């Protein structure tokens, strides 16, 4: 029988890591990786693969790895997944591939650490010549260079399609560069993966906002197909009184300053970021954890996560939550801010909060938080980051007025193919589903790429 528990991954010590932006999870050594790979049962029916949104041949890459055929392993991995070094780090494997692993069902046992192995193989940086098929003389425009767009671009390029990616920012990666912090996903990893996509012949046009700087109709006319993968980029605010006081930020602003604009290196980099002593971060998702941990690293003395439901309903990955707790971040559950209070200079000095209790399940299946009467109290804070989710960017969407939207204001697209109401136009990722995960967006990209190929072939 294999070892019951997964091989531990070394991590930076919490005291050390809150003083820097170095990656926390250090990855496996060769010995550790081989030891972990040896645990895989190589199940015939491959339950893990069915849990992977991009359908990676998991037993295949693990088998090659444990036979120390590293290049084969990397080729299998990259054949199915264009961004394995990213996915190995940020996928919620515990809810996907690893959730289906037989070893995880043994009482007290752990699933194979598939994500860590994926990261190990990807980080070997074995040059894998991407097999690009001869040109099929078709061209596709991809809007947005985030996880969905990069996946579509790479999958189509492999099949001989000429792909142009239009990106609003000055660099590729989307949420991988503006959202996820360096200590969880080093930007060097993202640029390596983007380079891999570029080497397949994908052309990137930066600083182009389709619908603003290039008309959408122009792309529809000039290209054989168009994929929209612009994400859910508009920040949501709770909208409570005092939201426009100073030192209240959306998580998107805070993280964009730090990640995309590298404000943690201010003044070497010109973009500044605020940091105060007592920071409250509202929400309990992965973005909340990212913002809280970033605030801690920038020097906040206290960081408080304020969440209206209980620990059990937290949408964040368990690992991220644990990391945050190790770093001295405090969690306040069943607490809802109802008003921000400011001083004479309009700087926030406190939040009025109420205590909550959990009632009947709501549409999300989670128990609805209900306000407790007479539970109002004040929490002193001098900075607040709201991390309660994003919505589709209404203005970016306005550039695609001919594309049909659903009742949530997202683009209406077929789940399996990404087809929209316009025959040439496909869409996927957060702009279709609302804010979700990197790998789900990549999965949608994969399915769309298949559908686009069929469409181009006239099938």
């Amino acid at each position, binding site marked *: 029988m294999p070892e019951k528990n997964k091989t531990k991954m070394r991590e930076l010590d919490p005291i050390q890591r809150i003083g820097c932006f170095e990656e926390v999870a250090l990855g496996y050594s060769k010995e550790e990786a081989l030891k972990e790979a040896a645990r895989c049962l190589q199940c015939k029916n491959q339950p893990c693969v069915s849990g992977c949104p991009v359908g990676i041949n998991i037993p295949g890459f693990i088998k090659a790895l444990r036979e120390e055929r590293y290049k084969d392993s990397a080729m299998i991995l990259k054949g199915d997944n264009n961004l394995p070094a990213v996915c190995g780090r940020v996928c919620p494997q515990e809810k996907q591939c690893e959730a289906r692993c037989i070893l995880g069902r043994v009482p007290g046992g752990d699933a194979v650490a598939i994500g860590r192995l994926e990261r190990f193989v990807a980080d070997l940086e074995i040059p894998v010549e991407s097999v690009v098929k001869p040109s099929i003389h078709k061209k596709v425009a991809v809007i947005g260079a985030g996880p969905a767009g990069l996946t579509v671009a790479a999958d189509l390029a492999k099949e001989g399609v000429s792909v142009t990616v239009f990106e609003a920012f000055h660099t590729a990666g989307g949420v991988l560069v503006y959202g996820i912090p360096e200590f969880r996903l080093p930007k060097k990893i993202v640029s390596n993966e983007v380079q891999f996509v570029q080497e397949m012949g994908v052309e990137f046009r930066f600083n182009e906002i389709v619908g603003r700087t290039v008309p959408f109709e122009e792309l529809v006319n000039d290209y054989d197909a168009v994929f929209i993968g612009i994400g859910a980029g508009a920040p949501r605010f709770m909208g409570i009184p005092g939201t426009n006081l100073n030192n209240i930020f959306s998580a998107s*602003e805070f993280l964009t300053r730090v990640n995309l604009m590298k404000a943690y290196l201010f003044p070497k980099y*010109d973009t500044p970021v605020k940091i105060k002593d007592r920071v409250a971060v509202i929400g309990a998702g992965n973005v909340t954890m990212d913002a809280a941990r970033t605030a801690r690293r920038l020097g906040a003395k206290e960081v408080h996560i304020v969440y209206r439901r209980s620990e059990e309903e937290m949408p964040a990955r368990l690992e991220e939550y644990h990391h945050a707790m190790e770093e001295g971040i405090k969690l306040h559950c069943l607490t809802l801010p109802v008003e921000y209070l400011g001083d004479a200079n309009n700087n926030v000095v406190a939040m009025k909060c109420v205590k909550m209790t959990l009632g009947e399940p709501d549409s999300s299946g989670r128990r609805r938080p209900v306000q407790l009467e007479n539970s109002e109290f004040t929490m002193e804070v001098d900075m607040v980051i709201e991390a309660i989710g994003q919505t589709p960017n209404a203005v970016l969407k306005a550039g695609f007025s001919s594309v049909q939207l659903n009742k949530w204001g997202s683009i209406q697209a077929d789940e399996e193919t990404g087809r929209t109401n316009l025959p040439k136009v496909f869409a996927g990722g957060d702009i279709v589903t609302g804010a979700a995960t990197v790998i789900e967006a990549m999965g949608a990209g994969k399915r769309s790429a298949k559908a686009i190929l069929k469409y181009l072939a006239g099938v």
Partner: protein
Amino acid sequence: MYKVISREAIAPDTFDIWLEHPNIHKRAKPGQFLILRLDEFSERIPLTIVSTAEGRVRVIIKTIGKSTYKLCAVMPGKTIADIVGPLGNPSEIDRFGTVCVIGGGVGIAPLFPIAKALKEAGNRVIGILGAAKKELLIMKDEFLPHLDELYITTDDGSEGIKGTVTVALQKVLKKEKVEVIWAIGPMVMMKFVSLMAAENNTLCWVSLNPIMVDGTGMCGACRAEVGEEVEFACVHGPEFDGRKVKWDELIKRQYQYREEEKRAMEDYLKEMGGKNA
């Protein structure tokens, strides 16, 4: 990469810069802005477009902090890393009758394409251009062909009326019915013009220039309360009815990064001093 075509000092600390851009001229309309990024270390700097010509775009900048200094130090022939635009919504130009356009300080520059478009649309255009003193008054000669009447105000009286632009606006409003006002300049100026416009029940467009990061509606840094709504200047604006803007809050938001700006500027000057030595 985008080349700096020309750079001319038109007033103390104020530079008139033309940049190469392949297609911004095809789409830019009065009132819109662009964002540029000088190099890997630079901020994303939002600037209102002053004019465009085939393959080029013009901005006018006053050096106030590190980023603007760095930008104005880029010599013709050199390049900057990124330009994205046009961004924001165009001004709502129409044939209104008599309109009054008011520019203060370096805010005179973004007013220029609006004044020109209003004149072309057949309006009687009254201009009020204000500056602290004569030497700081920019673009007067360029405005003249597009104005039916021009008032100049300076804080020290070195040219035109001594006082602020509202002194001139008061005179105009006493004399004739103005259908729409445009005001671009320091926030305090826009606030007081808006108050006067409100007293006269006149629509008053102002172009907000709050702190921005991405400029595409993603971060909410540039949010402002306008009427009952929270609006993002980058995507819902930059022009709003100034009578509805909650000015005092916005002005305080504008000063949020003062300390950081000061520190960056000091470091930059030290670094430059070191190089010159």
